[in-house]
């Protein structure tokens, strides 16, 4: 006879049974089948569209087809404006390693929606599209339909609707597998690198063209042929020079014809009353003056505009800042050899494509809050070079000035040295900024394809602060700032920069890591690099990483790269250049073991950076040697 089990025995049996059941169930469940549901687009981490394009789309009610991707190893849903942007991102090398594979891809579904190619063939619909799985959709490609930056690829859940749309707007209908394997003409950061030289050459050509205005024959001499500068301009025939003799001229001048206004030791004094010289004609030039007595109105009346453009308020306010010279629709305006002392702005260029500012010094207010910009350029590409800006708000402020080139200038004691708003495809090269309140170069509002090359920023709040995408940041030297370089521009290339003696060398701040950061030198920074929210960033490209002061192999390294990875966000590694004891801890078995497997799950990791092939010698050895000598000299005095 079997006795009844005791309570203890019953409990033990129950515990074993429950454990077996729970553990068995954990293995029985298939984890691969769950597919997340789509989320509203504004809740995704958005990529792919510049703010300027987004503003244009909103303002003109253009519908941009969207894509959202759920990655297996990335916590946030990533949204792409434009199917081409999504496909380009999905096919990026290393994409899968960083984010895992896509669990689900949804695209905008225009089926049963009143979609059409409207004004200028822009894609329009009165009812916002739903979502459909990318693999289930049919796509209309190569038709007339457009979005602000590119031809539109329009997805439909229903193939019949796609065919009907193709009837109306042209194009053909294809499936996801054809879209997925297509390559799109998207400017990548590498392309921008190749554009640096062409942009420089275009700027040089613009400058050369403008400099010819210096040689126009003199038709009027102010002080001899005319009493005032304005009278001289009024009397001069087009394509001649109005020469202004030595002396001070207390007046405001309007130039409304293609003439060159040239001073010879002359001072223009606006008597504190508005802008001193206003140019409204093409191909005019203002050369060789000292300009004083500029009005102190920093911004115009924002509400004065009746334009319906989305940026009308900015245009009116910033475009009407008091200045030494203002160009309005003055293409090819040449402003050179000016010495400006201003409580507001130096030169304002509105809609003046090809304008050139060179060899100008602008002395602004001591406190940036009181003054305004050295140069404001809006709505057209200009060239600003070989000039010096001290004080005031921003050295150069760009608003929708795509393709502008800013070269060889010096910026001292401004708020920002160079400030890009809604400006894409610009070149900011070989400028020197120091003692900037906030930042040497700052790029805002998510533009694309900018190049920031060979600049030097020192003793400032921050060095170079990027945003947007597909930009090229190279060969810059940032010394003694609070934050050397912020990599908040996605899918961009950051190479051969020197970050020396900053509180923070690089602040990695994009939520989606997609940048290439390679061959930069990090030396003597309090923190070489820090990382914001988002998964692990890998700062190595094609087997080449960066030079990290302090990083070293135990056995000494013979090759160009170290065999041990370096992580500037790791609590041990980041102290290697501060204390040698960190070496001892780094060699501990547990520390080594812990690191070994970590790269398996980069998408899940937060806030960290790893360089898998750190350089054993600096990429810019001369610059580093020079900076080290300088530091030693300063320390010894």
């Amino acid at each position, binding site marked *: 006879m*079997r*006795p009844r089990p*005791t309570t*203890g*025995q019953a409990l*033990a049996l129950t515990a074993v049974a429950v454990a077996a059941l*729970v*553990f068995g169930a*954990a*293995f029985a*469940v298939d*984890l*691969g089948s769950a597919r*997340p549901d789509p*989320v*509203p687009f504004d*809740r*995704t*981490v958005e990529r792919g569209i510049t703010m300027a394009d987004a503003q244009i789309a909103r303002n003109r009610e253009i519908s941009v087809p969207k894509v959202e991707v*759920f*990655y*297996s*190893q*990335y*916590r*946030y*849903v990533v949204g792409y404006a434009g199917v081409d942007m999504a496909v380009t991102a999905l096919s990026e090398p290393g994409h*899968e390693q960083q984010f*895992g*594979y896509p*669990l689900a891809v949804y695209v905008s579904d225009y089926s049963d929606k009143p979609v059409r190619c409207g004004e200028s063939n822009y894609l329009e619909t009165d009812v916002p599209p739903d979502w459909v799985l990318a693999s289930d959709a049919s796509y209309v490609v190569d038709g007339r339909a457009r979005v602000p930056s590119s031809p539109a690829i329009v997805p439909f859940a229903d193939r019949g609707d796609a065919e009907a749309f193709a009837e109306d707007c042209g194009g053909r209908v294809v499936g996801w597998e054809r879209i997925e394997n297509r390559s799109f003409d998207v400017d990548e950061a590498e392309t921008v690198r190749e554009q640096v030289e062409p942009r420089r050459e275009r700027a040089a050509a613009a400058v050369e063209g403008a400099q010819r205005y210096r040689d126009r024959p003199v038709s009027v001499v102010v002080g001899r042929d005319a009493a005032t500068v304005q009278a001289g301009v009024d009397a001069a025939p087009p394509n001649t020079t109005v020469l202004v003799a030595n002396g001070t001229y207390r007046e405001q001048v309007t130039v409304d014809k293609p003439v060159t206004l040239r001073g010879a030791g002359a001072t223009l004094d606006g008597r504190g009353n508005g802008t001193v010289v206003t140019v409204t004609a093409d191909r005019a030039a203002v050369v060789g003056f000292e300009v004083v007595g500029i009005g102190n109105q920093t911004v115009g009346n924002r509400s004065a505009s009746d334009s319906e453009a989305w940026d009308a308020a900015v245009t009116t306010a910033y475009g009407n800042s008091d200045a030494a010279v203002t160009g309005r629709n003055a293409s090819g305006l040449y402003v050179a050899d000016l010495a400006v002392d201003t409580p507001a702005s130096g030169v304002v260029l509105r809609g003046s494509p090809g304008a050139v500012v060179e060899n100008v010094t602008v002395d602004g207010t001591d406190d940036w809050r009181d003054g305004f910009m050295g140069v404001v350029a809006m709505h057209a590409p200009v060239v600003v070079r070989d000039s010096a800006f001290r004080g005031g708000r921003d050295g150069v402020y760009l608003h929708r000035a795509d393709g502008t080139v800013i070269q060889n200038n010096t910026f001292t004691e401004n708020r920002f040295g160079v400030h890009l708003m809604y400006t894409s495809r610009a070149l900011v090269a070989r400028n020197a900024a120091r003692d900037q309140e906030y930042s040497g170069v700052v790029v805002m509002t998510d533009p694309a394809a900018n190049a920031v090359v060979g600049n030097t920023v020192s003793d400032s709040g921050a060095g170079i602060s990027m945003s947007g995408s597909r930009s090229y940041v190279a060969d810059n030297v940032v010394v003694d700032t609070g934050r050397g370089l912020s990599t908040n521009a996605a899918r961009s290339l950051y190479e051969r920069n020197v970050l020396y003696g900053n509180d923070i060398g690089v602040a990695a701040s994009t*939520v989606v890591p997609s940048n290439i950061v390679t061959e930069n030198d990090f030396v003597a920074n309090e923190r070489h690099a820090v990382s914001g*929210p*988002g998964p692990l960033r890998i700062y190595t490209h094609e087997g080449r990483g960066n030079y990290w002061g302090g990083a070293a192999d135990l056995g000494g390294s013979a090759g160009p790269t170290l065999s041990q990875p370096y992580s500037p966000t790791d*609590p041990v590694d980041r102290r290697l250049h501060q204390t040698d004891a960190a070496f001892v801890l780094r060699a501990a078995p*547990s*520390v080594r*073991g*812990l690191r*070994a*497997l*970590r790269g*398996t*799950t980069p*998408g*899940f*990791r*937060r*806030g*960290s950076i790893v360089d898998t092939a750190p350089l054993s010698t600096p990429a810019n050895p001369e610059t580093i040697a020079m900076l080290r000598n300088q530091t030693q000299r300063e320390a010894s005095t």
Partner: protein
Amino acid sequence: MTRADGFWTVFVREVRAAIRTRAYLGLLAVLAAALFGVARAGGGPAGGYVPTVVDLLVVVEVLVPTVAFAVGYRAIADPAARGELDVLETYPLPSWAYVGGVYAGRSAVLLTLVGLPLAALGVQVATTAGPETTVFASHRGVDSPLLYVRFLALTLWYALIALSLAFVLSALAGSRGRALVLALAGLLVVTVGGDVAVFAGLDGGLVTSETLGGALAMTPAGAYRGLVFDQVLYVAVPGRSAFVSGAVAVGSLLFWWVGSLVATELVTDTR
């Protein structure tokens, strides 16, 4: 007294003895500190279950057999040295019931030592892993608590297997001194030896690319690690699935588990 009663009596005696042993509390505390410390240093719990497993795997592979051997290395050797086994001969208690009872008792101790901190860590992941910002819509990706439960199950099983291996050596030892030496040797073989042997075999041509999975699955540590990759970490390495043959690994673990318990019983019986 029935045989089942004998098993139960021994089991209860072992558990009671363990409860009286304060040192186990210390071991639990140290183990918990080590596991939480490693996970925290690795940053896994903030990321999710899979990264936590990735952080833990290396240390768990060393710590779990170590704790299992600590719990089991004297389980049979001690009573044998004290002559307790000879006394038991006079009771109507078959040696399988005795060995089974001791094993079950020590298992309860071991599962508590290993399971509690790991389960607590799982709870920590559940409460801390989450998006850093709520501005954006977030989802779990392929991460899932079930993956962690799988890891827990595999690890507890691995602990039980390590304990049974410790039991064989304990039965073979016969004295406390020898028990310690044998246990240390056994621990080295389990944690390092198997992998090094496979590695050497690979180097020497004995193991090939085709047989590597099988060879790994033969060793307890290799089989355990293989199953963790197969059942848990596979989500992190898309496109790879055949880490080791699952059937071979399970078979091998069963072999080491049941085999060493049977061996323990046989050795104890012949004493």
